[in-house]
Each structure stands twice: as C-alpha cells, then as structure tokens.
C-alpha cells in the first residue's frame, strides 16, 4: 500500500502509523457528558468502503494526515494534512 504524503510524496505504508478512525470528534474538555466521552473513546463506525482515518508519517515528516481509504480494496483516495481539515479545532 502506497500513501502519497503531501509533504514527502509517495511512500510505503510501513513508514506510517495508523491512528484510527478520522470522523470522531473529542468532546469539549469541560464536557461532563459521560455518554459522549464513552462514544468518543469506544464506538467506531468501522465502514466497509471509503473510510475516514488519521495516520501519522512517523518514519518521514511526522505530519498527521487525514486519509480517505477504501477498506475493501485498500485504495488510498485522498491524503491531506489533518490540520487543514475543517473539523480540526482552530486555536483561539
């Protein structure tokens, strides 16, 4: 499996570390909603098909990447820096 890092170019997947599903949103730090925290930690969509996920290029530029990859064919459809995606919290 080849992942095209936006910084380093196409690299073998063994250079990257998988960090899990990408669609999960961490509740606000001050949230006391136990079920929201539990859902964030334990529940997964586990899609068969195009899947949102976060990887880190740990053997390269160390960027965190948001990837859409097909879990049935292993085809990587899109790779962008995780910090460029909309659901990333912007510092105040």
């Amino acid at each position, binding site marked *: 499996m080849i992942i095209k890092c936006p910084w380093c170019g196409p690299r073998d997947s063994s250079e990257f570390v998988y960090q*899990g599903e990408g669609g999960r949103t961490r509740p606000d730090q001050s949230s006391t909603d136990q079920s929201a925290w539990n859902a964030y930690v334990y529940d997964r969509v586990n899609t*068969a098909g195009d899947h949102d996920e976060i990887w880190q290029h740990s053997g390269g530029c160390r960027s965190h990447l948001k990837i859409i990859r097909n879990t049935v064919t*292993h085809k990587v459809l899109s790779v962008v820096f995780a910090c460029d995606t909309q659901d990333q919290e912007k510092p105040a």
Partner: protein
Amino acid sequence: MREYSAYTLLKNALTGNRDWKQAWRKAEPRPHYDVIVIGGGGHGLSTAYYLAKEHGITNVAVLEKGYLGSGNVGRNTTAVRSNYLLPENHRFYEHSMDLWENLSHDLNYNVMFSQRGCLNLAHTPGQLDEYIRRGNALRHSGIDSELMTVKQIKRLVPALDVSGSARFPIIGGVMQWSAGTARHDAVAWGYARGADRRGVDIVENCEVTGFLRDGDRVTGVTTTRGEIRAGKIAVAVAGSTGSVMKLAGIETLPIESQVLQAFVSESLKPILNTVLTFGMGHFYASQSDKGGLVYGGALDGYNSYAQRGSLPLVEEVHSEMLALFPSLASVRMLRSWGGLCDMSMDGSPIITTGPLPGMYLNCGWNYGGFKATPASGWCFAWTIARDEPHALNAPFTLDRFHRGILIDDKGMGATPNLH
C-alpha cells in the same frame, strides 16, 4: 448419529466407499424458523449445534453467504489455549477447553484435537515476571501453567536458538500443557454435520441483505435467496459484524475490523512439537500433521475488509521466525492468506442479547476466536434459548464499554490494533 466407526470405515473400504451419507444436506431456505443464525462459521455452526443438542431447538437455519468454512474458521492457525490473565476469561476459555477435550466423541467427527502445549517465550526479566504473574493467576483458577527454564525449553524444541548471542535471547517461558491445536476444517464440518443430523438447515450461498422489522423488533431477514422470518435472529459474523449490523440500523459498535495474515511453509520433518509464541514481537507457530509450519504474526494494523494483507507484515513475520529458528532460513513459504478480525476495544468478546429486540449478538473475537468455538456456541445457544446470558458469558456484554466494566486482559485500552 454414530455412523463413523472402525466398523463402517472397514466396511466402506471393502465396498468402494459407496455407502457414506452426505455430511450435511444442501438445505433450501424455508420461509419461517424459530431461530436464524447469520454466519456459517465455527461460532454460528456450534451455536446451531448446541441449540439443538442442549436446548431442543431444532427449527433453526444457519445462513452462510459463501460456502461453509470459507471465513475465519478455515483461515485461523488452529491454536487452542486458555492461558489468560483475568478470571472472566479463565472461566469462559476453560469451559471451551472442557468441550474441546470431548469434542471428537461428542460430534462423532475427528477434529484432531492435539494437546501438545502452548509455550510463551520470555526474553526479558520483566516479561518473565509478567508470565509468572499470569501463570499464578491461572493456577489460582485451577488451570495448568508451568514455568520453564531455558534448559527445559531447549530439550522440548531443540531447533530453537537459545544461545545468549541470539538477537533476543530466550531466558525462560511459560507453558500450558493442556493447550494445543485442532483441525479447523473438521471443526466446521463436524459441527455442521452434528447440527444437520438434529434437523438444522444449513443454507449456503445465502447472503443477508437486510433485516425485516416490526417497529424496533427484528422479525426476519432479506437474503439473496428470499425473505426468511424467525422469532429470534442471532448474528455471529466476526469481521463482518460492522456491515451486517449497519443493515439493522446499528451505526457504531466497539469493534474495528482488521486483517490478520497467516502462513504455511512447505512440509518438513518433525521440528516443532508444541505451539510456540515469540515474546519480543508478534510471532507464533505450530507444525501441522502434514509437516507444514503454520504460523502468523501481528495484525496489519489498520481497518480492512479485504481478507488479504500487505507485504511489510510478511517480511516482519519471517524475520521474527528466523530470530527464533535460524535453521529455517532456506525453508520456503507455501501459502499465505488473510482473515478479518473483529477487534473489540478491550480485547474480549461480546456474547449478548440485543442490541435490538429479537436480536442476539456474538462478536469481538479479536484474533482468538477459534479456541473459543465450542464455548462461544454453547453460551450463545444458552443466551438465545433463555433470553439471558449464562454465568460464563454474563461479563461479555455490549454495554460494558459504556458502563466502565471492561475485560482488558492485556491492559491495552481502546487500541484494537495492539490487543
């Protein structure tokens, strides 16, 4: 039922093997059953078998999307053991071990269960301490576990590199002598035959495409072979749990499907007479009766429904193999394949009623489902028949993640690719 015996074997050998009965019928699906079991793998078939045998529920259909034994029951590396740390796992897997020990007689089908032991190698003092802790926990629950010295290990497996100059020197190990291997295809066929003889319909090439609902209640399934209704619908589909449960409107579960690869080498003279695990990485091996080494390693480490793995893992597994057995460097790999593991968030399974009325769920087997096959079916059948879990599977609920009562044997947390 007892049609396989020395007498029938001899009689058929002398008369051209024309008198054998088909192991199971090619059943056509009927419109209504008491229980539908989705998934004709080891767990689904053993569930159907124990529903019929223990609870007298024989109006049962097992629906399998492919051919019988095409999923994980035919893809695993056949190891059977119960050497866990936590008491919930001890009780459950030891019950499985009890069923394994009598399984060939019970099914009248030789599952070739061979209690050749399972040896975990230790390479650091800290690891050995952890093994001693686990061994003591096992002995406390009445399960056999024995610490082995390097000298004893070398006597048992002479081919191992136990020299101090090995990349990861072996400093000891912990052995469960009652562990071993079984022939996985025979387990599937034996349970299928046993269930079929008791009246269960095993319907192959029948993929579930949706659920029939009456309000919240699940009342049947739509399949590639038509609609089938049932009072109770049990799901035992391992790596496909996510996609099947989505058909019922369950969007999230504490499960990730990941791919695990397995390998077989060309046939060798006897070299390994136990199930062996490497302690400094993920590697385990045993030798089949045909002589091939059956071995595997870690998950590929990302979500996958592909039933095939990638090459970096192939290289890693073989480098670990050679770290233990330098003498195998010129042995060729014969075959490799992948299976879908339903990795749960605490590394333990889920056998429960629900999550919808009329539905029962069996999943979360990580990469340890084969050894659990008898107890999983036994407990799931109990849960389906009585609408409540048996004491053995009562801890394995779906809501334990949200209630904070996890059964995390390795203490890894919600990181499925590390269990």
